[in-house]
C-alpha cells in the first residue's frame, strides 16, 4: 500500500506539470526508446523511465542520467502512438530532479543548463562567456582543448567579447516579470 501512495504522489507531481499528464496513457510499446539517438547511453531507457515513474520509483527516476541525455530532438514525441509529449516528460523529470536535489552527478548537462538559464534570465546569452565559464567551472583541462575551436570562431568575429544588453527599461520589465514568476513558485 505504501508503494501505491508513493506512486500516486509522484504521478500527481508529474501530471501537475504542463505536458506531464501523458504519462498516464503510456502502453509501453517502446517506440520512444527505439527512436532515441541516445537511448544506449541512458541508465534507463525513456520507456523504462515512464514505467518506473508509474511504479512510484521517484528517487530512482529523478537521479537517473537518462533525461540529461535527451537532445530535445522530439523524435519520440512525433512517433508516440499515444500522443505522449515524451520530450516534455524528459524536461519535467529534469526540473523535478533539480528541485529535489537529486541530479545525477556524472553528467555536466545540468550545470550547463543552469548556467545557460542564468544568462537567459539576464536577457541574452553571451556565447563566449557562457562557454568559458562552463569549461572553467567543470573541466579547465578541456578548455585548453577547446582553444583551437574558440580561436577559429574568434578570428571570424563569431565570439563576441561584448554581450547584448536590453535597454534599462526593458531589463527592469523583464526582471519584474521573472521575480513575479519566482514568487508564484514554478509552473503548475
Amino acid at each position: 500500500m505504501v508503494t501505491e501512495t508513493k506512486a500516486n504522489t509522484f504521478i500527481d507531481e508529474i501530471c501537475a506539470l504542463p505536458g506531464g499528464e501523458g504519462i498516464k496513457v503510456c502502453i509501453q510499446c517502446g517506440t520512444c526508446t527505439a527512436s532515441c539517438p541516445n537511448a544506449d547511453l541512458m541508465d534507463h531507457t525513456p520507456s523504462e523511465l515512464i514505467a518506473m515513474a508509474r511504479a512510484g520509483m521517484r528517487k530512482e527516476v529523478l537521479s537517473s542520467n537518462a533525461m540529461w541525455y535527451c537532445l530535445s530532438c522530439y523524435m519520440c514525441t512525433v512517433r508516440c502512438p499515444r500522443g505522449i509529449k515524451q520530450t516534455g516528460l524528459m524536461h519535467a523529470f529534469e526540473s523535478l530532479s533539480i528541485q529535489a536535489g537529486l541530479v545525477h552527478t556524472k553528467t555536466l548537462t545540468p550545470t550547463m543548463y543552469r548556467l545557460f538559464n542564468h544568462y537567459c534570465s539576464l536577457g541574452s546569452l553571451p556565447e563566449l562567456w557562457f562557454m568559458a565559464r562552463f569549461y572553467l567551472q567543470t573541466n579547465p583541462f578541456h578548455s585548453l582543448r577547446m582553444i583551437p575551436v574558440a580561436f577559429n570562431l574568434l578570428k571570424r568575429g563569431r565570439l563576441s567579447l561584448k554581450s547584448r544588453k536590453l535597454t534599462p527599461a526593458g531589463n527592469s520589465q523583464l526582471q519584474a516579470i521573472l521575480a513575479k514568476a519566482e514568487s508564484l513558485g514554478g509552473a503548475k
Partner: protein
Amino acid sequence: MKYYTYFPGCSCSSEGGAKAYDWSIQAVSKVLDIELKELDDWNCCGSTPSGSVDELGAFCLASRDLALAEKTGLDMVTPCSACYVIFNRTNTYLKQYPHLKAQVDESLAAGDLKYQGTVKARHMLDIITTDIGYDAIKSRVKKPLNGLKVAPYYGCQVVRPGFGFDHTENPQSLDKLVASLGGEPTTFPLKTRCCGGSLIISEEGLALDLTHKLLESAASNGAECLVTVCPLCQTNLDAYQSRVNRKFKTNYKLPVLFFTQLMGIAFGLDGKTLGLNKNIVSSNEVMERVYNPISYMTTH
C-alpha cells in the same frame, strides 16, 4: 512587399555567433521584397535549457517577447529553430493549460504587459518557401548553382514536434529550395536527425558522434556542401568539423552554409555581404563551382 516582425535570437544578433545567417537573411530578404522589422528590446527566448531548470520562468521569458510582438500585429519570424519551437510551444501550452496561462498573465502584469495569444511564430524557411514560393525564388536566380550537390540538413526542431510546417521526418521544403536555385539536393537519409545540439558543450563526445554520422551520410551521398536552417546545427557541423576529423581520423572539408547564404550566392550577391568568410570550413570551392563551372570541371 511582405512585412514581418523579426526575432533574430541571441545567435543571430549582432553579438552572436551566427551573424552571417542574419546578414544573408537581410540580403536575401531585400531581393525577395521581404521587410523584416526587428522586435524592439527582445530578450532571449530561454531556449530548451531554461524550461528544464525553471519551467514557469522559461514560459515567461518567451511570453514577454510574444507580448511585445503582439503589439505589431504581424507574424513573428525567427531564423533559429530553437526559438521557433519555444515560441510555438509557449503558444500551445498557454492555450492548453489555463492554470499556466493564469500564472504567466500574472507575471507579465508585473511588467505591465499582456499577451492575448495571437502571435504566429514562424521559421524563416517557412516564410521563404511558403509565403514567397519556389517560382518567385527561381525568378531571382542570376547564378544558377550548376547542379551543385547540396545535402539539405533540416535538423530537428524546424519540423519537430511539428507546428504545421512541412513533414516531421521526411520534409521536402529545403530540397525543393535547393532545386529551385539550380542545385541538386542529394539523398540525405539523416536530414532530420540530431546534430547533438547544446550537448556539444556538456557531452562533447556524444555530440561529435552524431555530427560525425551526419557528415558521413552527407559525404557518402556525394554532397559538396551542406545547408542548414539553424545557428546551432551550423556551429556543430562547421566549427566542430575539425574535432570530428580528429576524433574519427577523417578528413571532411564540407562547407556548411546557412540556406540563405546559398540563396544569396545563386542571387549573385557577393560573398562578403553573405558573410561567407565567417564560415570556418571555406566555401571557396562552392563559389568557384558556381562562378567558373568550366575551369572547375577541368581542374576537378
